[in-house]
C-alpha cells in the first residue's frame, strides 16, 4: 500500500513538473508571414556593355551578340556578371545569347533566377528556347 501511494505521489509530482515545464517552456514564435518583395518592373538597357569597356558602348544588336559569345569564352567572374547584366538587353536575341552562355557555363540557375525576378512572356520565351537548345 505504501508503495502504491509512493508511486502515485511520484506520478503526481512528475505530472506537476511536466505541467510547470509546459507552462514555462519557451514557445516557438508564430512564423510571420513574409511578404514577398514586389517584383521590380523590367527595364531594358544596353548599359551593360560599358562594363566591358567604354569602347563597347553603343554596339549594334548583332555586335552585342558577338560580344556575348566572346565574353563567354573568358570564363571568369567578371564576364559572368556581364552576362547576367546582358539579360536585360532590349534585344531578345542578345538576352537569349546571354542566357545560352550562362547555361553553357553551368549557370542556368542565374537565368532561372532572373526569370523569376522578371516573370513574363519574355523570360518564358528565353527559358523555352534554352530548353530547346539543350
Amino acid at each position, binding site marked *: 500500500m505504501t508503495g502504491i501511494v509512493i508511486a502515485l505521489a511520484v506520478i503526481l509530482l512528475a505530472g506537476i513538473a511536466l505541467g510547470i515545464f509546459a507552462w514555462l517552456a519557451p514557445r516557438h514564435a508564430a512564423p510571420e508571414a513574409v511578404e514577398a518583395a514586389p517584383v521590380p518592373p523590367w527595364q531594358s538597357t544596353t548599359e551593360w556593355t560599358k562594363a566591358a569597356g567604354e569602347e563597347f558602348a553603343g554596339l549594334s544588336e548583332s555586335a552585342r*551578340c558577338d560580344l556575348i*559569345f566572346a565574353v563567354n569564352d573568358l570564363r571568369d567572374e567578371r564576364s559572368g556578371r556581364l552576362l547576367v547584366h546582358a539579360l536585360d538587353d532590349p534585344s531578345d536575341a542578345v538576352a537569349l545569347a546571354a542566357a545560352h552562355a550562362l547555361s*553553357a557555363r553551368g549557370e542556368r540557375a542565374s537565368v532561372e533566377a532572373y526569370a523569376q525576378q522578371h516573370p513574363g512572356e519574355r523570360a518564358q520565351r528565353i527559358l523555352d528556347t534554352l530548353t*530547346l537548345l539543350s
Partner: protein
Amino acid sequence: MRTLADVFTPGAPSLSEGLRTLAVSPERELEPGMTVRASFTFRNQGGAPATGVRVRFNLPEGLVYLVGSGTLDGGVLDDEQGNSPLLARAGADIGDVQPGEERRIDLAYSVAGAIENGSTVELQAAVTAFELPPVGSNIVRLVARSRPALENALTGISLESRSHEPRAGGEATVTVRVHNAGESSARDVVAVAPVPEHTTYVPNSARVNGRELERDLPAPFDRVHAPVIAQTLPASATVTLQYRVRIDEPLADNTVVAARLHVASQETPAFTVEPAAITVRARAEFADERTAFSIEPASDAAPGSRVQIRLTAYNAGTAAAQDAAITVTLADGLHPVRGAARLDGQPLREKKNAALSFDLGTVPARETVELALEAVVATPIADGSELPVRAVLRWNGGEREFERTLTVRSRPYLHRRRNGIDRTGPVTVRPADEIEAAIAIGNDGSAAAHDCVLQLQIDPALDDVRVFDKNTRLDLTHEGVELGTLDAYASRKLTVRARVRSPYADRSEIALGAVLHAQELGEVPLGSASWRVESHPAFSSATSSLTLVQDEVFRPNQLVDVHVRLRNEGTDNAQNVRLRLYVSPEARIESVDGATRDRSTLTLGEILAGATAEIRLGVRLLRSLARTHPVAIEGVVTADAMLPVQLAPLTIVTTAEPNFAIGTLRTVPEEIADAGEEIEFVLHVRNSGDGPARRAKLTLEPDPLLIYLPNSTSVNDVPVRDAGAQSPLINERGLLMSDVDPGVEATVRWREVINNNAPANSAIVRRVKIAYDGDRTDEIAAPEVTVRCAPAFANTISGLPFGLDGMVGPSLGHTQRALTGSEFVELPPATPVSRPMVPERAMLSPAATGNGHGHANGTHHSEDDGGHVAHAVQLLAAFDRDRLDRTMRFVGEARFPGLVTHLFALRAFFPDAIGGVGETTLRELRETIRETLDRIYIKLRVANYVLAQRDLETAAARSALEAVLASLDEDAPAGAAGSIQLRGTADLDELRELGEDLSGAALATALPWAALARLIPGDGEAMQHYRGLLIEALDDLEEADETAFIDALQRRPYPVLDAALDVVRAQMTAVRA
C-alpha cells in the same frame, strides 16, 4: 606649460632668457631699410638626445623677414613659397640634436621703410624638444632712428579755376598738399596758405582731406594765419588742404592771382613752397540768355502781315563792349519797314540804303541795349515757307550770331463771288439736246491751291459730259477733272458740255453741280446749274406694227399668231397705252399674250421711252371663210399726252381646199377569199380639207379577176345607177359627187365576185381614184385580197345568174418554216486549276521503322539504298522520349529560308556513336557543332541578319571534324542509351576522302557540312531519302565559295529538301507516338 606656439604671441609676456646665444647685428639702433641679422646657436648640453627639436624666432613689428635668409647650419629652411618655418607658430622642426651637438640658426630681417623714430624692436629666439619645454634666448632690443621729410616734390600748392578759364567773378580752388616723404611721422604740420590777392575766401570751404577744417579752428579760415592741418602726418602720408576763393570782379584783364604756401612741423623747420598762380581774363560777354533775338510772330505769319524783330543785347561780361553794332539780314520773303527801327525805344534815323546795320556804340558791363525793327511778309508766297532772319552782334573782341526762322502760313482762297458754275443757254431742253455750263475758278489767296480736282455732280439725265478749258478737252474721270495747281491770284474758266439723256421724263429738272477739291482748302462748293426737260412719248407705224408670226397662207379655223410690236419712239414714257383692234368678221381674237384685253382693245399700260412692247395675238379664222378671202386687222395706238397713231393694217391671206386623201377601202371578206366568192368593197371617203369640193369623181380600174355584181353600187346606202353592166365607178365618167363640204363623208359600196378562173394565190388589189376640183387626184387602195381556190363541183355561184362549169380547187397552206441556223452555245473559259507543288519524293509515304515500336532495324542501312558499299562505317543515334520531343520541336522551329534549316537538322540527328570514333572525340565534335549552330540559331533572330563566315565554322570545329573523320573504321559503334535508335551506315572510303579534302578546303564552305550530312543515320526510307537529298544538295555546293555558300544557306529555296525533312519529322513523331 607654454608651448612653442604660445610664445611670441601678441600681448604674451616675453619668454625668460634661458640661452644668451642670440647675436644681432646691428646691436643698438636701426634705420629704415636696414638689414638686421640674427644668429642663434644652441648646444645639447645634456647626455641624452633631444628629439623633435623645434626653433622659433619672433617677428617684431617694423621688421620683415628676408626670404631665403633662414638657415640651419647653413641649410635653407624656407619652404617652396619662401616662408620660413622659423617664424611659424610651431617653429622649424630640425630633428634630433645629439648630446654635445650644436646647432646654429641664422636669420635676417629688413627694417620697414616707415618706422617711427624712437620705437623699440625686440628680437628673441626659442627652442624646444619633445623632452624640453621652450627655452628662450636673450632678448635683443634695437631702437629705430627716423625723421619725417615734408619738403619734397609732392608737397606743393595749386590754384585752379573752377571754370574752364579763370575769369573775374569766377571761383578758384586752392589746394595745398603736404607729403611726408620721411620714415617717421610729422607732428603738428602747419601750412601757411593765405587767401590770394584779388580773391575772396568762400566761407566754410576749407577742407583737410575732405573734412571741414573751420570747426576745429578758433576763427574762420581766412583769419587764421598758420593753422595746423595735421596733428600727425605718418610717413608716406599726404595731407591735403583745400579751400575755394572767388576772384574779384571787375578785374583788369590779365590780372595774376598767386597763391603762396609755407609749411612747417615740429620736426621740420618752415620752408616756402613755389607759389601757384593763374591769370584772370576780363572781357565783354553777350553769351548768356539775357542777350536774345526774337521775332513775333514766330510762326504762322500771314503774307502781308508785319513781323516784329527784336534783339536785346546784355553785356554779361566784366568789361565794356566797344564798337558794338547789329546787322540784321532778312530773307527774300521779308521786306523791312522803313522808319520802324528803334534803339532802346527811340526811333532811328531813316536811311536811304536798305542796309540793316545799326551802331550801338559802347555797351558797358551789365548794360542792356534793345534794337527793334519791323518787316512785312511778302505776298504771294508758298505756304510753309521758312524765312530765316539773321542778326549779328559785333563788338570789339567778339561777335555773336542769331538766327530765327519765320514760318509763313499762306493759304489759297476761293471767293464765292469769283467761283461758281453758270448755265449757258435756255433753261428748257429736250432729250438729246446738248447743254452747256461755264465754271469759273479764281484763287484769291496768297498761296497756290495744289492738287485741285473739279468734281462734277452730274445729273443722271446727262450723258456724254465733257469739260473744256477753252478749246482743250480735259480728261473727265469718275466725274472729276484734275486741274493740278491753281496758282495764287490765278483763275481758270472751264466749259462743261453734256447731252440730255434720251428719253427722259417730261418736266424733269436737270442739275449740274461742281465742287472744287484742293489740298489746302478741302471741298469748295461751286454751286450748280439747272435745266428743265420737255419730253413726250411718240409712236409711229414705222416701228410699231402688226405682223404675222408665220408668213404663210392660212386656212379656215386655223389659229393665226399675230405679233404686235409697239415701240415708244418718244423721249418720255407713254402712259396708259391702248391698242384698239379692228378685226374682219371672218376672224376673231382668241388669245392675247402681253396685254390686257377688253373686247377689241388691248391695254398695255406704260411703255417706257425707247422701249418696245410685244404682244402676241391668237386670231382664229372662222370656218365660213371663203376660199381666198383675206382677213384684215387694223390697230390704233392711243396713250396719254400723244395723238392716236394708226398702225399699218395686217392682211391675212387665207385659202380653203378640199382633200380626199384620207379614206379607207376595205373588203368583206378580208385578206383571203375563195374563187367565186363575192367580195363587198366599202369605200369611206371624206372631204378632210377645209374647203368644199365642187366636183369629185370616183373611178375604179376594172380587174379581170373580178366580176361586178350589178346594181350593187350605193353611196351612203343610196343605190346608184350602173353604167351599163358595170358600176359607175368603173365607167370613164366615174361616180360623180358635187359640192362636198369639208368634213362630209361618203360611203360607197359595191360588190364583185372573184372569177373562179382566177389562179390560186392571185392578188386582188382595188384602187379608187378620186379626182376633184379638176386638178387634184387622190387614190385609196384596198388591202390585198388573196384568191384561194378550191375544188368545186358545183356549177353555180352565188349571185351569178348562170352556172359555170369548171372550178379551180383552193391552194394548200404554207409549209412549216425550217430553222435557218443553229444556236451556238459558247462555254465560259475554263478556270485553271492550281495544284500545290508536291515534291515528287516528298509524296513518298513515310515508312515506319523496322520494328514498328520506334526501334530501328539495324539490318537495313541507308547506303544500301544506293547499292553495295565495300567499307561502311556504322552510325547510331539514340533518343529517349524527352530528347526526341525536343529534337522534333527544334526541327519544327528551326525553319528559316534557305539551306540553313538543314544545318540545324544535322545538329538534331547527329549520331551519338560512330564506328571507330572515341567518345571524347565525338563529344568534342558534337559540342562544337551544337555551339556553332546554337549561335547561328540565336543570331538569326536578329532582324535581317546576314550570316558571316565566322558564324559557320571555326578552326577548332574543323579540327574536331577532321579528328572524327580520321578515326572512322568499320568497327561497331559503342552503345547509346535511348529507347528510340536510328542506325545507319556511311561509306567509309568516301568519308576518308572527304577528310583528306578538308585539309585544303577553306573555312565556312559546304565541304565539312557535306561530310557531316553523311554522318546522319539513314534509318528508314524517309530518313534515307532526306539524307540522300541533303548530301546531294551540299555536294552541289562543294565548289562554291564562302559567299555563294552563305547565299545558298540564307536565300536559295530548297522546297524538296524542306518537304523531305517534313516527312522525316512526321515519321519520327509517329514513331514517338
